[in-house]
């Protein structure tokens, strides 16, 4: 009963955020600059045919709210408009989705495995040598911007050592290095949260009881420490997806991956604001929906939430 109310409340909170965020993007894109078509054709004024086509395709003669409603009606029926080349944006996005999904998926797997392991190891002996090493290295990774890490990784592991392809050919192997770069910042954050959360849960009374009754140290750490500490990490991975989605733009650019980030950057360069709007809208929808799913999974991980 309580569980159903929790789910319902989350869903009710989700709808206004979804509409608000997509409207915000739409409004910033089409209404903020005054004339959204000004300066889209380099130094010259745009040809009338371009203006007419854009006005027609995006209902630019309607009031902003009407434009937005018509646009979102299209989004929910799978119509995202067409690119300048005449390809439906939805098709373009779908054909690029697998690469970006693989890239992000690999990054998340890497982030969780390495982040959780590092956090647990650091928490076993707080203040020890390993702990200090992990704290310092996470600090450094957080401080280096992702595009610098990508360039470093590319020139060191790709060019110098030749372990990985320098640019991607779409194969899973060629996505490993980009995914490691993409997940690196989050690895550091996950490791830090895992560490402090582990330290806190290992000091809890029931853990001391478990130790006192003679439970094997390994089981104490796994059953009482790791399981409880995974809860904050789950939320973190969801919230950090925003960094990841922004990061795909940079990583796909540097490693030459034909994913959604690459499409976004290309459309920005070519002034295809329709495609930019569609791509950003879809990325934000993905971000919001995945966070909603994480929120809904939360009570399964932490029974306390159900009785809130």
């Amino acid at each position, binding site marked *: 009963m309580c569980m159903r109310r929790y789910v319902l409340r989350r869903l009710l*909170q989700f709808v*206004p*955020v*979804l509409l*608000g*965020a997509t409207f*915000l*993007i739409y409004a*910033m*894109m089409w209404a*903020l*600059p005054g004339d*959204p078509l000004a*300066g889209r054709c380099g130094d010259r004024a745009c040809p009338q045919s371009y203006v007419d086509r854009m006005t027609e395709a995006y209902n630019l003669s309607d009031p902003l709210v009407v434009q937005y409603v018509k646009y979102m009606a299209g989004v929910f029926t799978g119509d995202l408009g067409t690119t300048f080349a005449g390809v439906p944006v939805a098709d373009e996005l779908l054909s690029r989705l697998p690469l970006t999904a693989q890239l992000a998926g690999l990054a998340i797997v890497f982030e969780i495995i390495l982040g959780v392991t590092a956090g647990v190891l650091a928490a076993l002996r707080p203040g020890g040598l390993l702990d200090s090493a992990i704290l310092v290295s996470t*600090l*450094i990774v*957080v*401080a*280096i*911007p*992702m*595009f*610098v890490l990508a*360039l*470093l990784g*590319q*020139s060191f592991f790709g*060019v110098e050592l030749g372990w990985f392809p320098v640019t991607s050919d779409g194969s899973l192997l060629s996505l490993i290095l980009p995914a490691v770069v993409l997940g690196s910042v989050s690895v550091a954050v996950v490791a830090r949260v895992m560490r402090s959360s582990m330290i806190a849960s290992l000091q809890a009374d029931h853990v001391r009881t478990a130790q006192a009754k003679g439970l094997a140290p390994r089981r104490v750490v796994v059953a009482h420490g790791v399981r409880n500490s995974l809860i904050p990490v789950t939320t973190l991975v969801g919230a950090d*997806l*925003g*960094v990841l*989605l*922004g*990061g795909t*733009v*940079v990583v796909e*650019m*540097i490693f030459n991956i034909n994913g959604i980030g690459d499409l*976004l*950057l290309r459309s*920005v*360069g070519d002034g295809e*604001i329709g495609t*930019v709007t569609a791509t*950003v809208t879809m*990325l*934000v929808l993905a*971000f*919001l929906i995945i966070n909603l799913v994480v929120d809904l999974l939360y009570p399964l991980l932490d029974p306390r939430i159900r009785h809130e």
Partner: protein
Amino acid sequence: MSDTRRGRIWTRLGRQPTFYVAAVILSVLALMALAPGLFTSTDPMDCDLAFSRVGPGDGAYFGYNLQGCDLYSRTIHGARASLVVGVFATTLVVLIGGGLGTVAGYFGSWVDAVVSRITDVFFGIPLLLGALVVLVAFPSDVTTPAWQTTGKVVLAITVLGWTTVARIMRADVIEAKEADYVDAARSLGAGHWAILRRHVLPNAIAPVLAWATVAVGTFIAVEATLSFIGIGLQPPVVSWGVEIGEAQAYVRQSPHMIVFPSAFLSVTVLAFVLLGDAVRRALHPPRPKGR
């Protein structure tokens, strides 16, 4: 904040070794931004294509970039753009987010509901993607004056960046306004403004300060990223992100063009992260064991 409390925080800050490391790095950077002439006498705009991509040596410590400009001079002069964007964006974000968070936390009820829902909406858009949208809406090119290009980047970061500080501030204000002395002040007839200024804000501002210090570094990284992908700062402005972006295609042949600006950029961000860490520890010292 009372004088004794402020004194205690300074004392605790003084005990952090990372504080001194960060302070020294940031002082040098600030000097670089204010008076680049102290570090280099070479004009960053004095370029000669004959020297294009020439490596370090012979008077040019960092070598030359693609246009044959002295890279050392350009790296020194690049500090200004990064610090200006970082500091201005953080200031605006703290003012807007802090203001909204305070209003929401202090007045509660429907004000809180409205502000919190607006915060949720902006929070739903990842910073880099949102900033990209704003910059596409207001494109800059080589003819745009430098202050306008910089202003647009600051604006783009501010529009999307204020939500975290609003959430932190709201939670702090809710906690601070529950105190007995706030009730006492109110019953003595103090107005909202007086209560906020004298009792609530001084007690609520600390976590925001620690966050804001790290945020300067984060925003500098965001600016560099936007400039790197070509929609942030634009060429007449000397900036680390622009410099690295132009060098990207030559990562194999001329790594020096990437290494030096990247190192300056990373050390700058690191300094702000370290300072933020020290500030946080000074404000919330770890409890002694056994309590």
